[in-house]
């Protein structure tokens, strides 16, 4: 028997009224992967999260989690999934422990298992001495850890997290990633998260870039960066269009304007910079050379900067 994919998404489209939030997205996630859905706000990742978490019903296409279709086997899917929402899902009037017991009742975790899981999670997430604190009194970082404990309580095989870094300071973010990596290596949990942070996506095994509802790229972070190859040159100038024309006519270089910067990809970074400075130094305010980043991948795929708002 072939072990099923952790997550399989086939031709999924979704609309909110007239707006197409997801457009024919297909991909598969293997068991034990740490997988990031990366995209700007409005890219479609939240919609995909809602569909994967079974919060929202599928309109078109198929999604299955560990071989169970979300349409036909909602119950099994819900059983297998751990879900951590971006918006807090804790009851603020209850203590940490009461929140965990509430979650336990929803997933049927009882008796010795409940006791063991609670102790393990509380110590692993360094919450043991806060167990009797009312959630209202906890900091954002601590609350996020309780959310994680809640999501992992029933030992799900697939953990789904929506923008888990939101509101976390860098130290807390690192701690969270250490925990996610531990889950994967120690228990073989498939970790699927959404993020709009490029540096976060670097830590994933594979990334899917979603833009305007479409899957624009799907690979490991390194492969994505290599795919655009060479170096990236970014020039700050007062007249981007003038410079672009000049580079085209005088150096035969294809450059594009991205958020008022002139940007081009090249095999030989240093050589190209020398050439540009020889012919157009008067127009260059600043020039930088960099190895491609995920941001460059995104620009390469979409022609826009990652943080740029999509105009409807």
């Amino acid at each position, binding site marked *: 028997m072939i072990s099923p994919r952790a997550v399989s998404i086939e031709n999924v489209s979704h609309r909110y009224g007239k707006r197409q939030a997801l457009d024919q997205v297909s991909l598969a996630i293997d068991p034990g992967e740490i997988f990031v859905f990366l995209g700007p706000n409005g890219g479609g990742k939240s919609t995909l999260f809602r569909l994967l978490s079974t919060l929202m019903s599928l309109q078109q296409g198929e999604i299955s989690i560990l071989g169970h279709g979300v349409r036909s086997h909602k119950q099994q899917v*819900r059983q297998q999934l751990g*879900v951590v929402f971006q*918006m807090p899902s804790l009851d603020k009037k*209850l203590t940490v422990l009461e929140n965990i017991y509430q979650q336990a*009742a929803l*997933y*049927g975790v009882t008796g010795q*298992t409940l006791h063991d899981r609670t102790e393990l999670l509380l110590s692993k997430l360094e919450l043991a001495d806060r167990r009797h604190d009312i959630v209202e009194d906890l900091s954002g970082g601590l609350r996020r850890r309780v959310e994680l404990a809640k999501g992992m309580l029933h030992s799900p095989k697939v953990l789904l997290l929506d923008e888990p870094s939101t509101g976390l300071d860098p130290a807390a973010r690192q701690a969270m990633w250490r925990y996610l990596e531990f889950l994967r290596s120690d228990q073989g949990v498939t970790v699927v998260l959404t993020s709009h942070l490029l540096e976060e996506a670097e830590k994933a095994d594979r990334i899917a870039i979603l833009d305007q509802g479409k899957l624009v790229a799907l690979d490991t972070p390194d492969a994505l960066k290599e795919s655009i190859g060479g170096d990236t040159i970014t020039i700050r100038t007062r007249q981007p269009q003038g410079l672009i024309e000049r580079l085209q006519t005088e150096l035969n270089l294809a450059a594009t304007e991205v958020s008022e910067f002139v940007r081009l990809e090249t095999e030989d970074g240093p050589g190209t910079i020398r050439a540009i400075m020889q012919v157009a130094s008067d127009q260059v305010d600043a020039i930088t050379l960099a190895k491609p980043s995920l941001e460059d991948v995104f620009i390469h795929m979409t022609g826009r900067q990652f943080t740029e708002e999509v105009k409807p």
Partner: protein
Amino acid sequence: MTSEAMPHPSPVAAAMSLCRREIVRFLRQRNRIIGAIGQPIIFWLLFGTGLSGVFKASGQGGGDESFTVYFFPGTLLLIVLFTAIFATISIIEDRNEGFLQSVLVSPIPRWSMVLGKVLGGTILAVGQAMLFLLLSFFVGITLSVGQFLAIFAILVVAAVGLTSLGFWLAWRMDSTQGFHAVMNLLLMPMWLLSGAFFPIPANDAITSTGQWVLSWVMTLNPVTYALGAIRRIMHAETAPSFLGGEATGDYWLPGVGLGVTITVLFAVVMFALACQAAKKTRRGDWI
């Protein structure tokens, strides 16, 4: 298969846990306790003493008994209604604060979620009503253990019905403001027109179209029947005048059998409607 190894939740245990959560939350919000107990008592004292003169003058009370006594069963139901309303408003808070999301993606069936909410609301509502019922001894209403238990049972069923109604209404709402409108337009009139405040005109005594409409609305109001049953039980051994002047033929009051039957039916139907509504995915499920 991995799915067999996963624990399965018991819908009843999940409902009990959600129900306990309602009670713990209630006890941790002192202003809710004060509001829920204080308001009906103030209502009862103000209206009871304020209107007793009018009540006596119109001869509805019969003898010397005051409006405070007539108004007592109505106040009991008012407490149940208010608490049921506050308990179900919490579904809107659960939604807006995010707690509901984790319930919605959990493997428990939706009826289990509704049961938790309704049971929690019912326990809070009836608990407070029973505290108030103890006051009856101070206003000269004497109840036997049997009467006490019968009233308790009717209040429980009425609370299940009203909490389910509240759930059904609140499920589709995104703001508590919206619920306040519903409360003023539907829930308060349901209480006012239940015979809690003034008796239901009997068919033979109707003299105007207004009275005719009023009588019909009051007859169709399910709360009328819970109130009728409680009023009859409460005053079974005391002056019949408290049955709302029924003796004179001017007013109508449902019998205990009819009252209990309609109250039970109302609870069953509302609970089913609430479960049905909760099954549907709606926009506010995600934030």
